[in-house]
């Protein structure tokens, strides 16, 4: 293993790391609380194993300079594309999605990891371009880098995950510099694509979007989940109903209560105190990421951190917004909290990457 420079160790940000641990611990507790009494019994145990794996990945990746990844990014990127292709062929279907791959004992969702690869790839591409504003050509190549894997994820039927590629592109392009006329062009493209997208959406996906604007429209089917989630959060009031005491979560009103609606269960059992603390932790991590982006040694470092931050905050926005009934229902996990190994381990990898950038800010 690479011997660590003294300055690297001093650069380790303990508060940041503890915030990650606190989020993961909250997730483990909620999973314990909601899945103990049902046949989902083993989610709790598995989450702890995933957490250990995540921490291991975090510590291992910390030892590698991020330039190592960017130097080999074309190979890593192609490998990621190949794995996505493999999933399309042999992937395991969960609900309507075909985005999982079985690796011996457990199954893995490669799209989670591919998002981070896409961040590094786009960051490297933009970082090497040293003018003040991107040209149309750069914008298009950048778009291709991000949206090709996203398109493959769409082919797997996982629209929710595919959407999360968009903020990577939008944020990094803005950071690299985008001209007004190019924004106009992009907006026209989006405006033209929107109706087309609307008509290619599946029925249930369209229903979910309509429901946001009027949840009572169909309280027993599509609006149902949104209303139940709002009731869950609201009925938690200030201090919550307590561990295992949440009726909304434990009586089966909330679907996917340990994954997509984990925030609702947490808010029901821990109240406003708990839910605002979770938001506070995310805000703190966002602040640390922002600081790291500013202090990074080079443009590449800044770009990577901003890309990861965009990804993380977008996930938080979509997931919490969905639970609060502000945004359409999408199967997107809450980072560090939701049950599931792919997301947890991938986020620990991404955080390790950013922490590494912070630790190496003075190191040449």
């Amino acid at each position: 293993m690479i011997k660590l420079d003294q300055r690297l160790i001093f650069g380790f940000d303990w508060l940041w790391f503890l915030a990650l641990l606190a989020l993961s611990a909250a997730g483990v507790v909620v999973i314990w609380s909601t899945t103990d009494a049902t046949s989902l019994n083993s989610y709790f145990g598995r989450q702890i194993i995933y957490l250990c794996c995540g921490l291991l990945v975090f510590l291992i990746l910390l030892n590698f300079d991020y330039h190592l990844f960017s130097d080999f990014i074309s190979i890593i990127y192609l490998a990621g594309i190949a794995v996505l292709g493999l999933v399309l062929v042999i992937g395991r279907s969960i609900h309507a999605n075909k985005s999982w791959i079985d690796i011996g004992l457990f199954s893995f969702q490669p799209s989670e990891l591919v998002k981070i690869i896409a961040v590094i790839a786009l960051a490297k591409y933009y970082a090497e371009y040293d003018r003040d504003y991107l040209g149309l050509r750069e914008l298009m190549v950048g778009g291709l880098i991000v949206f090709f894997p996203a398109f493959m994820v769409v082919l797997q039927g996982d629209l929710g995950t595919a959407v999360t590629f968009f903020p990577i592109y939008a944020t990094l392009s803005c950071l690299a510099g985008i001209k007004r006329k190019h924004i106009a062009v992009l907006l026209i493209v989006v405006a033209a694509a929107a109706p087309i997208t609307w008509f290619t959406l599946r029925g249930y996906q369209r229903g979910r979007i309509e429901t946001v604007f009027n949840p009572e429209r169909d309280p027993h089917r599509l609006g149902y989940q949104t209303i139940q989630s709002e009731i869950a959060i609201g009925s938690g009031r200030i201090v919550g109903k307590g561990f295992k005491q949440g009726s909304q979560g434990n009586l089966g009103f909330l679907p996917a209560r340990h994954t997509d609606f984990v925030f609702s269960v947490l808010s029901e059992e821990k109240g406003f105190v708990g839910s605002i603390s979770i938001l506070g932790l995310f805000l703190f991590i966002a602040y640390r990421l922002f600081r790291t982006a500013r202090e990074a040694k080079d443009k590449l470092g800044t770009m990577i951190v901003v890309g990861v931050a965009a990804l993380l905050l977008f996930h938080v926005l979509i997931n919490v917004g969905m639970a609060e009934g502000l945004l359409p229902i999408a199967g997107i996990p809450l980072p560090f909290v939701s049950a599931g190994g792919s997301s947890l381990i991938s986020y620990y990898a991404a955080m390790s990457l950013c922490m590494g950038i912070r630790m190496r800010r003075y190191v040449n």
Partner: protein
Amino acid sequence: MVIQQDSNRQLIQQRLNLFRFPVLLIFFILAARLWQLQIINGAEYERRAEENRIRTMQLVAPRGTISDRNRIPLVENRPSFNMLLYREAMKDQDATVEFLTTRLGIDAETIEAQLRRSKSAGLYRPILIKEDADMEAIAIVEAHRRDHPEIQIGPEPRRLYHYGRLAAHLLGYVGEVSEQDLAANNFPGATPGTLVGRTGVERIYNQVLMGTDGERQVLVDSRGREVGIVEEIDSIIGGEVSLTIDLDLQSVAEAALQDRVGAIVAMDPRNGEILVMASSPSFDPNAFSARISSDTWNALISDPDHPMQNRTIQNSYPPGSIFKLIMAETGLGEGLLDGDPQVYCSGASVYYGRTFHCHDKKGHGSLRLEQAIAKSCNIFFYELGKKLGISAIAEHAQALGLGTRTGIDLPGERSGIMPSPEWKMQTRRGKWYAGETISVSIGQGAVSTTPLQLLRAISAIVTGGRLVTPHVLLWAEKKTELEWPVVTVPVSEDSARRIREGMRLSTVSGTSRNAAVPGVEICGKTGTVQVIGNEKKAMARGKTGDHSWFVGFAQKDNPEIAVAVFVEHGGTGGVAAAPLAREIFRTYYDKQKPAILTRNRLSDTAGVPSLQGSND
């Protein structure tokens, strides 16, 4: 490099600062919405959550049917009802406890202890107050539904063993899955509270028999009263298991054993299908289909006759004179009986300075092998054993499966002991004495076999070396691969033929006459095991009578059924064991005649006819 990019870098820092506002805005909106939901409208949402009650009831799946070889059901299910307490609907614990104690006669202490214990289990998991409640209790609960909606009746199918004690050891019984079993995932698909097979077929084929539980979600109001059904997923009954057992033969065997302590096992010697497996005394597995009371359990466990033990495979005994058949096979195989030598029996003989007796004090005179088998002459086999030596005997006996498990598809089988000098050195740290070989020659000493083991070994001899894997499964739903390997043991056709002749002679004019059925060529061999030396008999207390054995088959040249009978302290094998086997043979061949025998239920089986005296 950094300096060159300076202006570009400054631009990036500026743009970076622009991100601050939208991020803060997002967090502000999400937090404001939380404030709105939880603080401003919290009370309203709390009320809606109160009204919002779905109660999930488990629909326990019935276990699959166990049937005999003709698909006559032996084990099915009966409906039963449990009394459940839903704590979240309980308004006043004292009132509930009072209702339960005064109207339903349930001990207040018990309920309060249960309530305390379940505190950590999650409020929405019901507590089981009373299992298999009677109709009266159910009527009372139903009559008070409005006042006590927290008490509910939940259906649960329970195991019904149609024939009670019949084949109880073979069928086994069910019980709630233990935490260790859950942790080790011994029963995939089981959840806390699931009934799983504890012994016998119920355990071995549990995965086939176990069904898939369903679920009913009902909408209840804030007082816990049912308003409507949200969703219902039906349970799926477990798969059927059909056994090789023949109910008629099994009934006859159980009736023949009566109050005796012993075992009967019958097998098709060609393929190892078990036709009868009876062990006495027995127990009623119906007593286990609800959570068993500790009194019943203690009575079963402390009974000196060990009714829970399956004596056909879980106990091993010295084989006594049955072992002479293995001696005969060894002698023939090793060429020591070439030329058909005769041995003179004077009633006793001296080996290594000690006098060994024949059971007939007057002596049998000159005997050939077949006659020695028929008369069960000890002297003949002492002589043979002395010539063979223990190593050859052990080698042949082990090849015939003695000292190893038969591999039957039932739990808890014992392996028995086939002694040899190496075995003695290992287990008892002592040298093998030549005198021990003489004892082993007539199946005494350290030799010990289960009745099934012995039956399988003798079957292998008389079929010319087919050492089968005994099994009780004929077929099972959802189970396609059934392999019951047959090993070929080098038993020459000549050896097999001569031993069959000897055993035939035994039922015609020898010790096994009580096993004879007219018109059927039954062959047999009796055994009587001295439990304790004669001189000590007078001093000893308790059970000292000899154990009785019989092993036989039919027909002579076409073995299709083999039977082993063992009676603990029954006395002479020819008197105590052979007549029981006769009932099995008779029923087996009567069944082959068209429409003579109708099904024997436990109640109407004829008793065992009077016993005739016989020598062993």
